[in-house]
């Protein structure tokens, strides 16, 4: 099916199943421990275990791995290294090699895999390996290398954009803001580490692994291992979080495959937690300079946003400036995205790449400007709304309800109780402040396929290689099929995460929900046609409702349609036409209230509200769960999360979950989420958008603005930890 023009009325509009708050159908399996995660396929016979030997230096060469002692350690079967692994290809998305040596590109880069009869034996033997290195000098400090940066495109968009005359517009603006913000390297820190069980059957490879996009896993493994893609099977039905960290094949998958091949037995490799931070990928740190020029009437005259980030050669930039490109109107605009070379571990996509941290700089700068103008920050944002893409005026937004989000949120949150004067509200030892920020996140789609089977009893089976990374894919896909075929949700079985199923979009970039359900929609349309054909009903008139089929004078059960044997509908949705003609994005507004301890500068969140507009909300329960998770992650990124770089050794120092502090339950107050829920017919047949990444955009800015309102301290280097905030605090009276 090709989606090219705005969707008309379709069965999804009935809203009997889709759009209803529905607990996730895979929930009971997870609670009971029956959802099998990558490392838990215990049915593998003769399983061997691999343990990764990771580089102790950040850059340089391995002179010798010195494997002798480990080779003869108890239980060891073999040791895989770059020397005996054969030639490995380099898949496009990987900047660093997944099996390094003799050259070392980053700290904790995998240099070997010890394969042994037990996990314990492999781990003990791996610790015996003390390679001999020659260290080389590297660059590890972003601020030191911004001078040697180059322009870098952002996901197919140019690295630099300009409209009007930024320099002139800014220089002539009566009110100006010129401020620089920094965001730290951030870790995905998903609960489930990378894990793979690899097994070979002749020249065919099966991987039970944890990966967000099945087809990309096959593509990249085929490239890396130099084998045909269709000889690889990926099984990844349950994924314990990814946040972008599992978009690309990692060392566990490649090394497990190599190990299993070498010994002719299945091999399991689980990444130990202390390697998860330097062996893998992270969100790169940014330096962002914001220049805003406005008239006294509050209209923005000029917006300039420059961003710097670093990565290994071949790696991408963190395109923070993207956030400025579509949000506010201003006649004179400029964005510049700069990339420098660093020798830190590889930076890569993490939840709302670019926009999550870009939004912090933009939305704090907007707060600074509102204050300078003497305007309310909500009113100032509304004043600068636009209904056309500010960089491409001919392009309308398919749906843009930013103003409604801000207004609804202000009302619900009691924004009128905010005192614009900082540090003016105190309750006991707490200074209280409120902050607001706008949220915007692009809503891309990818082609996505599914197979829907009508089986005995009118029961329905959906099969697609779509993944559920904890988001609720199982549930919304089941809801889609149930709606399309007029059955209750528990008549639908959903099977995901297997490359034997039709290729889907996978999960990432908040494209998964909209794309994958649209693919299921397309397959259901095919199945409805097949049913109509079998029953001799006019396909234009056929109706599926209440487990019955009616049309052309007939009224039969869905079960009867399957009596002559299973019927299958399979299709792939492709997007074009109207999708290209419109700017497709989601919008929101965050409102945050914080308390800051007047003595210690500890920041504690008190209330959080997000108002989100993302087309039809397919399932308010799972959508809310996505938004509150994203709000938590966004709050963490400005309050406590930070990968600390030691520039002497070139690595992230705090590489475990005791030291990389993500928010805990006690940090997160009640979070309220309001969805505007209006379907967007120009987005897809589902009239939906993604929601998984919208919630992280802006929230950090809202927290920072609330801290400023509470204390009068404007921190521009994130996260806002006690050591930074304390000296700027008002003196307790």
């Amino acid at each position, binding site marked *: 099916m090709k989606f090219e023009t705005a969707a008309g009325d379709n069965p999804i509009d009935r809203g009997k199943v889709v759009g209803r708050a529905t607990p996730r159908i895979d929930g009971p399996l997870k609670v009971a421990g029956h959802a099998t995660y990558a490392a838990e396929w215990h049915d593998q016979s003769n399983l061997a275990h691999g343990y990764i030997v990771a580089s102790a230096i950040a850059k340089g060469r391995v002179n010798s791995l010195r494997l002798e002692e480990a080779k003869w350690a108890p239980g060891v079967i073999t040791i895989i290294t770059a020397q005996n692994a054969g030639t490995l290809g380099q898949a496009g998305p990987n900047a660093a090699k997944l099996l390094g040596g003799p050259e070392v590109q980053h700290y904790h880069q995998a240099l070997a895999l010890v394969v042994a009869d037990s996990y314990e034996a492999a781990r003990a033997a791996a*610790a015996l390996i003390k390679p001999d290195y020659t260290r080389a000098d590297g660059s590890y400090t972003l601020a030191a290398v911004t001078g040697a940066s180059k322009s870098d495109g952002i996901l197919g968009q140019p690295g630099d954009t300009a409209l009007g005359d930024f320099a002139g517009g800014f220089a002539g603006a009566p009110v100006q803001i010129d401020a620089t913000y920094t965001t730290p390297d951030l870790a995905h820190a998903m609960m489930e580490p990378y894990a793979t069980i690899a097994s070979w059957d002749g020249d065919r490879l099966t991987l039970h692994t944890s990966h967000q996009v099945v087809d990309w896993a096959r593509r990249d493994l085929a490239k890396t291992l130099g084998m045909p893609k269709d000889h690889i099977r990926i099984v990844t039905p349950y994924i314990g979080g990814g946040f972008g960290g599992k978009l690309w094949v990692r060392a566990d998958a490649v090394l497990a495959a190599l190990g299993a091949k070498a010994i002719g037995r299945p091999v399991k490799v689980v990444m130990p937690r202390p390697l998860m931070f330097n062996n893998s990928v992270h969100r790169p740190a940014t330096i962002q300079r914001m220049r805003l020029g406005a008239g006294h009437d509050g209209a923005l005259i000029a917006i300039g946003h420059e961003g710097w980030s670093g990565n290994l050669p071949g790696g991408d930039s963190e395109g923070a400036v993207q956030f400025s490109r579509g949000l506010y109107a201003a006649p004179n605009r400029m964005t510049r995205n700069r990339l420098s070379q660093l020798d830190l571990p590889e930076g890569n996509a993490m939840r709302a790449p670019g926009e999550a941290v870009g939004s912090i700089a933009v939305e704090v700068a907007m707060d600074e400007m509102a204050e300078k103008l003497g305007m309310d920050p909500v009113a100032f944002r509304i004043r600068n709304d636009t209904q056309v893409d500010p960089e491409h005026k001919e392009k309308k937004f398919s749906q843009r309800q930013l103003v409604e989000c801000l207004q609804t949120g202000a009302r619900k949150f009691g924004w009128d109780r905010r005192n614009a004067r900082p540090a003016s509200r105190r309750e006991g030892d707490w200074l209280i402040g409120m902050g607001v920020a706008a949220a915007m996140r692009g809503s891309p789609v990818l082609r996505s396929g599914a197979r829907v089977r009508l089986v005995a009893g009118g029961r329905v089976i959906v099969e697609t290689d779509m993944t559920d990374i904890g988001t609720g894919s199982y549930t919304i896909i089941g809801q889609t099929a149930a709606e399309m075929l007029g059955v209750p949700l528990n008549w639908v079985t959903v099977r995901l995460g297997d490359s034997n199923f039709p290729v889907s979009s996978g999960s990432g970039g908040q494209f998964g929900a909209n794309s994958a359900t649209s693919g299921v929609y397309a397959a259901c349309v095919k199945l409805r046609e097949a049913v109509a054909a079998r029953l001799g009903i006019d396909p234009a008139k056929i109706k599926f409702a209440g487990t019955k089929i009616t049309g052309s004078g007939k009224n039969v059960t869905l079960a009867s349609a399957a009596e002559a044997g299973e019927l299958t509908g399979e299709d792939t949705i492709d997007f074009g036409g109207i999708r290209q003609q419109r700017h497709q994005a989601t919008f929101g507004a965050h409102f945050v209230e914080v308390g800051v301890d007047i*003595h210690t500068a500890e920041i504690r969140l008190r209330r959080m509200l997000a108002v989100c507009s993302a087309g039809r909300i397919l399932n308010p329960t799972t959508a809310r769960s996505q938004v509150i998770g994203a709000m938590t992650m966004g709050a963490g990124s400005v*309050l406590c999360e930070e990968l600390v770089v030691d520039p002497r*050794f070139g690595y992230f120092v705090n590489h475990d979950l005791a*030291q990389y*502090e993500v928010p805990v339950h006690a940090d997160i107050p009640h979070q309220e989420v309001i969805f505007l829920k209006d379907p967007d017919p120009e987005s897809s047949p589902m009239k939906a958008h993604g929601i998984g990444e919208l919630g992280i955009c802006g929230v950090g800015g809202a927290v920072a603005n609330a801290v400023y309102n509470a204390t009068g301290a404007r921190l521009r280097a994130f996260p806002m930890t006690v*050591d930074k905030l304390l000296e700027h605090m008002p003196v307790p009276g």
Partner: protein
Amino acid sequence: MRAFTYQRVATPAEAVAALAAHPGARLIAGGTNLLDHMKLQIATPPHLIDINRIGLDQIETIPGGGMRIGALVRNTDLAAHPQIRRDYAVLSRAIVAGASGQLRNMATTGGNLLQRTRCPYFYDTNLPCNKRDPGSGCSAQGGYNRDHAVLGVSSACICAFPSDMSVALRVLDAVVEVMGPDETSRAIAIADFHRVPGETLPVQEFALAPGEMITAVTLPPAPGGWHVYRKVRNRASYAFALVSVAAIIEGTGGAEKGGRIALGGIGTKPWRSSAGDAAIPHGAQAVADALFAGASPTDQNRYKLLLATRTIAAVLAAAKG
């Protein structure tokens, strides 16, 4: 983790005998610290002696005043004990300010006293660390040291001692009872139990001699006063202290008459001094000046001086109110 042998003992006497019989052996109590170290090969004991079934898991009243806490009493049980909560509230509060419920269910009194630093360089065996690998150097100096100590530091080591419970024990003037290889006992004042690193290596963290086991901690008669444990950290729970203050303030409702104060998070051991106690009637700045005499902060952790001063002020202000 390196392969090891394992033995479970039934009495304290068996435990010290086993320690004597197995060079390099370690006792394992809750295991919440030791097992992490073994997995990372920070500790590689060839033999483990499990003391979880030797008794020593009671909290008793000492005739004539005071309490005796067995070395195997779990942190959860100690913090919840009614008499501890009533008479030694600072201890109860310090314990529940640390770790998580699950960890406190396992962690023991003895193990908590002996927990080791959370310095990230100590935790990564690729990096120099004098505490882990004597003579290799101290990576924290010149590196990441925002969380590190400003007091009791030396060129050998600047890591902060992480235990919350021990800070309360310090302010309570607790005594650590230990049993030696020949079943002899001795008592070590808490002030002497934790040691600051000298310039010589290896770094001696504890006053425990080889072959000795902690059997109990005793508390002097109830000190009275107003008890507080204030722990400052970037996240609301499940994080080690940037600064913590354990205090017992005598006489509330007016000018403070005096009291005792110990600090955590800022020293290589729980920090208390008689000058600091004596300064309490003169206010937070006086207390801080006394306690931080000789402080040696880095650029990254200098904030701890201000933070501690402010936190002491908060505690004293609350005591007045």
